[in-house]
């Protein structure tokens, strides 16, 4: 038990610290690396809670795809971040006021007991016992049966996103050599290779067709 607590606090502290560093780091590449650290630690927190599927998904999706994509964008686009940040501090007072108001409201709501955070026993709709079915298995059992409708709907959303990305960015450029696989496959040695006799000492006596 004590070990679990220690592990929790270590992971939690590192997560929060990495989160702060994401916005504090000057170099955007470092920000992304700290983001990855934060993701790994949150995955550890999920494992502690017994949600191993979420932990794996977090690592695979967020670290494996999203963060790496960020890295690519940061490295490939030459954006001047210090310029982007230049006017940033002037919003600080306004942001601080809004934040303070929200905090005060939250404290009011919870302090007056208007919202009971210990919500009644309404949850737990047909949750299978945790020691009988693993997370992944339990999700798989319902994802393709009970929630097949939503699964298909989500699939359509992804398809539309893909079509949209193509529609809005794809254009035919002129003067670009496009790969034509059929032509490449159709070539054989008769058309692709030309044998020429070159006499020693003679230079540039052959031309490609």
């Amino acid at each position, binding site marked *: 038990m004590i070990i679990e607590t220690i592990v929790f606090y270590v992971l939690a502290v590192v997560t929060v610290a990495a989160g702060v560093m994401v916005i504090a780091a000057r170099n955007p590449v470092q920000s992304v690396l700290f983001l990855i650290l934060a993701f790994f630690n949150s995955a550890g927190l999920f494992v502690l809670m017994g949600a191993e599927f979420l932990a794996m998904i977090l690592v695979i999706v967020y670290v494996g795809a999203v963060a790496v994509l960020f890295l690519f964008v940061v490295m490939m686009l030459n954006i001047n971040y210090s310029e982007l940040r230049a006017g940033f501090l002037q919003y600080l007072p306004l942001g601080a006021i809004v934040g303070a108001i929200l905090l005060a409201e939250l404290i009011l709501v919870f302090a007056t007991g208007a919202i009971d955070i210990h919500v009644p026993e309404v949850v737990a709709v047909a949750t299978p016992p945790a020691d009988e079915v693993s997370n992944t298995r339990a999700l798989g059992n319902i994802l393709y049966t009970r929630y097949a409708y939503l699964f298909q709907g989500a699939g359509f959303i992804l398809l*539309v996103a893909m*079509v949209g990305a193509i*529609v809005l960015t794809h254009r035919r450029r002129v003067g670009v050599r496009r790969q034509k696989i059929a032509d490449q496959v159709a070539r054989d040695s008769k058309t692709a290779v030309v044998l020429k006799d070159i006499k020693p000492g003679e230079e540039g006596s052959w031309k490609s067709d």
Partner: protein
Amino acid sequence: MAEFTAPDYLTALPEIFLAAISLIFLMIGVFAGNRSTKLLTWLCVAAMSAAFIMVLAGSHSYSTTFFGMFVSDSFSIFMKCLVLIGAAVTLIMGMGFVKRENMNRFEFPVLILFATLGMLLMISANDLIALYVGLELQSLSLYIVAAFRRESLRSSEAGLKYFVLGALSSGLLLYGCSMVYGFTGFTGFDEIAAAIGHGGGDTHSATAIGILIGLVFITAALAFKVSAVPFHMWTPDVYEGAPTPVTAFFAAAPKIAAMALLLRVLLGPFHELLVQWDQIIVFISIASMALGAFAAIGQSNIKRLIAYSSIGHIGYALVGLAAGTPEGVRGVLIYLAIYMVMSLGTFACILAMRRRGQMVEKIEDLAGLSKSNPPVALALAIFMFSMAGIPPMAGFFGKLYVFLAAIEEGMYGLAIIGVLTSAVGAYYYIRIVKVMYFDKPVESFDKPIGMELSSVLVGTGVVTLFFFAYPTPVLEGAQAAAALLFP
């Protein structure tokens, strides 16, 4: 593991059909290229017509499928019919524009079909997650078609603005859904209704306040989707910047689907909390009517003007919802049906505003239209009088039913404000008529306007003008649909 029984697919037949056929159309487009745009547009119209028949032929009784996530009843049938008509007519209207204005890409009709599918899913949603999936499918397709003319700066701006603000509203919606789920423990509408009925109705309990916060967020997000004040700010810019057929589509179909969602969510799971959400609806209704009336006065671009006018119309429709009675909801449905016909007709006129091959959008470009093109001028005059609510045009009856419902409930203030703002609104609608009939003619528009536009103009014009002669189908459909939401 529990035994799995396959859901009843027949209930969702129109949606399954549209989903399958849209994939086929996409493949046709990919292989045939942009040459197939015209063919695909007609195929999409045919698919929507087939879906329309399936919707009408389906069972009108209340039935759910996909484990209660999908519902089909007379309300969904009425709304789906409107959406399918709106989508098909805008596709037909836009054909000439798409061909001329460098939008001739096969993805356009297919994306409209995807958006229509999303709207049908929204209308039939009976679960918070299903609601979100339908809404996102619709919104994502709409963001793309708004930015479809990517070489036009205004179109890209419209798409980007719509996307950013739409993402914000989706965030609000999800936050509200998570609150409701957290405090009731369910995502299904029926279960939420039962949970609220069991004690959440008592507004002093801790649970009820949590649900209320969620309800406010969900209402705000849906108000964004129907572009009601104070969540309207995207509307004028997006309407002005998006390509005109896309604007016509925005004004017709998505508003109706979002309104259907608003009605179903507020009157379904949250019916018990009517006293709570009624205040919100009354406020956004008054604010929308007022802004729609006053902000439109200074506009010189006709698309922007119609954007403000649509904000106002949503305000009038919400008067019926604020009444919170079956008569009120019937009024909303009738209003929506009439509004859709009027706005389709108006956009058909706007699409006819071409001078030497260029689209023009200024109101003063309409000057003297009665001399240069009397039929279009007559049609636009009919739509403007109808939007202003002057009898015997259809728009008058739309307003009549919602205001009557409000008065029956004793909401005199709301009804009076509604009548006053529509008097203000009449000023700018009739100003357009004045510009067309009494101002000095400028250069004529290009003629002919094309078969598709003419037939849409004639159809919508006749419906608007002679609605009073045979209103029975709309009235009966709306009656049956509204009765269902009040068990």
